[in-house]
Structure formats: C-alpha cells, structure tokens
C-alpha cells in the first residue's frame, strides 16, 4: 500500500496507484481499497503529478469522500492536496453541480435526414 502515515493522518500518493490521466470511475474502487486499509481517521489524497481528472472520475471521487465521511463505523475524513489548477477546477465544478444540480434538461433538436440526402448535400 502506497501510504505515508503521519501522527494523525495517512497520505496516499495517487500517482503511485493510478495513471497520471485519471479517466474512469474505477479510480474510486482502487482508492477505496487502499483507504480502507489505513487505520487513520484522516486520509489525505495527494494529487502531485496528476495531469488530468475526468468529470466521471472526479464525481466518483467526491462520492467516495461522502461515503467515508458519512460512515458510522470506520469513518474517515478525506482531503485533497497538491492538485494542479485544472484538476482542482474539475473537482470544484463537479462538487458545485452535485450541490446544485441542473434542473432543466438540455434541449436537443437536430434536423432529421437520411444518409443519401446527407451525402448529396455535402457534395452539392
């Protein structure tokens, strides 16, 4: 397990566990297993050298944070450090959307056609 323990908290260096570009929700599963193995009440996730986090992965990570913080048994506080601007911004946007979800569904009104007409129009 790639954790560094201080007196009160354990620090997990994410780049030792995951790719520098974090894409999928699987991030939560991998981190959950590692976090569970720590015996500290506070766990710090260190984003040093993480270049990108997707919206999906950021969402999964925030859900994981809520999950650990709402536990009765084995409750842990998760905090994030050393995230670069882009990674931090993604986490902020997803957290804001979670707090204030969009109510109105987006509109989608495409024109309908068939492939023959589309190809004709494109070559006209």
């Amino acid at each position, binding site marked *: 397990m790639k954790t560094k323990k201080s007196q009160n908290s354990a620090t997990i260096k994410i780049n030792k566990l995951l790719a520098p570009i974090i894409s999928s929700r699987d991030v939560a599963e991998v981190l959950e297993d590692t976090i569970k193995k720590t015996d500290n009440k506070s766990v710090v996730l260190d984003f040093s050298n993480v270049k*990108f986090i997707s*919206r999906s992965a950021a969402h999964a990570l925030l859900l994981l944070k809520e999950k650990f913080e709402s536990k009765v048994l084995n409750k842990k506080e998760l905090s994030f450090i050393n995230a670069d601007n882009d990674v931090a911004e993604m986490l902020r946007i997803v957290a804001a959307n979670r707090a204030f979800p969009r109510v109105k569904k987006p509109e989608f009104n495409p024109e309908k056609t068939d492939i023959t007409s589309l190809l004709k129009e494109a070559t006209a």
Partner: protein
Amino acid sequence: MIVLNIGTMKNIVIPKPSSESLIAQLGSLYSVLKNVNFGERLEFDLSSLDWVIPLLILPISAYINETQSKFRIDECSIKGYLEKISFPRGVSSISSFQRQIQKHKSYIPISILDKKEKIDRERLEALFSEKIFKTLGNVAGAQNAICYPIAELVTNIFEHSKKDSGFIFGQFYSTKNYLDICIVDCGRGLTKTYKEEKGLILTDAEAISEAMKGNSVKKDKERGYGIRTSKNIICKAFKGGGFILLSGSCALVSVRQKEKLVSLPNFYWQGTIITYRIPKPTASIDISSYIE
C-alpha cells in the same frame, strides 16, 4: 463497394474514400457495411486503398477482431502504414504501445482497451492521450480539452457496452493541421442499453436523442453528461471541430454548428462508434464553461 460471395464468406472490397471530410468518412463506412448482417464473417479486401480514414479503419479492425473475419492487404499500397498502426489486431499493453511509438514515431497505433485490466487500461489510455497531446502541441488548456472527450467517451463504453474491450485510434493530418479520433465498441448499443437498464423501448434515433439530453441509465442525477459535454468541447471549445455518434442504424452528425440525426437504411452496427475531428489549437482553450 464490390461484394463477392466466396463460399460462405462475403468478400468486401473496400473502396477509396471520396474525401477526408467526416461526412464522407461516414459515407464510406456506410457503403462498406451496408447489407451486412452484423456478426457474419467477412473477408475485407483493402487492396485498392491508398490512404485510410479512422472512421473506416477502426470499425473494420473492431469487426475483424469481434467476428474473426479475414482481411487482405498484401497488394495494398499502404500495407506498410497499416502495419505501423497495428491493423487490425491493435496493441493492448503498455509495453507494446511504447514499442510501437518508439519504432514508428509519427504513427499512433490502434489501441485495444481491456475493461478487466483497470489500472493498466487507464495507463494505456493515458499514453494514448499524451501522444495525442504531444502531437497537437502545447497551448494553455489543450491538455484538458484533449483528455476530456477521450476520457469521458471511453468511460462511457465501459460503463454501458457490457463488452470487455473497446478500440481507439487517432490520426493527425500534418498538412491540414487537424486530428481525427475514433472510438468503437461492439457492445449492446444505446437502444438496448435503455431497454435493459430503464425498460425504455426506443428507436436508435430516440436513443441517441436521450443520450444527448443527458438521460442517464444510472441512478445519480448528476450523471449522463459525458457524451454531450464531450461533443460541446469538440465542436465549440475547439473551434471548427466535428463529431459523429453512430449506434445501430442511426448517426448523429454535428459539423459546422449543424446537428443532424441521420438514418442509415440496411445498415446496423452492434455497439457504438464515435469519431471526431479537432483542429490543432493555436490559442488557449478553456473547457470549464462546457463541463456543466
């Protein structure tokens, strides 16, 4: 397209694409797979090709891998290129991807992402994204803008297709300064996903519309953004980008700020095909307003 029946296996001669536009690429794919019963074994004859386009070469690779179909490239003038991009088997490990890009520096190999190998799949996807990023150059915000659609669209494949593998390929056109990326799966497709997960009976066109409106098959209300936000980044943040999403017998074509749902009669792709074009960025890109 010329179709010959040799024994029980259809021989499909793949014609030269008429142009490199995304719509022409869709036309080429349609002409190749029209009247094919998805899953039947075919023999693809690539002899007459003298250049390739991602929306043709990646679905054919996926089809060959999925159905154990055959292919013929011996007399093809771009046989060397096809070998450099690892057509049709692709590369599925970090070491083989690194070997290929070390050996053929300006070519990006067809990559096969394996659902079960979570960490290694992410690392292979990261290598792919970094290669694309290096190819397109470094302007502020470009890394985010390049990684976002790849990450979200690949994630979408693994969350919904019920297949263990997905295919991804990219090709940079250095004289035209744009890059095409194609992502393919041979899974259950959007229509079947809505039916199995939400009990919705939809046509392929309706299923694409629901996906674009953010109707997620998952419970969380903040989900279902991946495809729409990716399309918006491609078409709006990258000025001049274009996007196609195909599932079953329908495709969404979003080019030059126009969106069309295009029916593809006598054509059926079991799964999803996404292709998009992004111009090489020349100024900083900010995707934050498109993420939602």
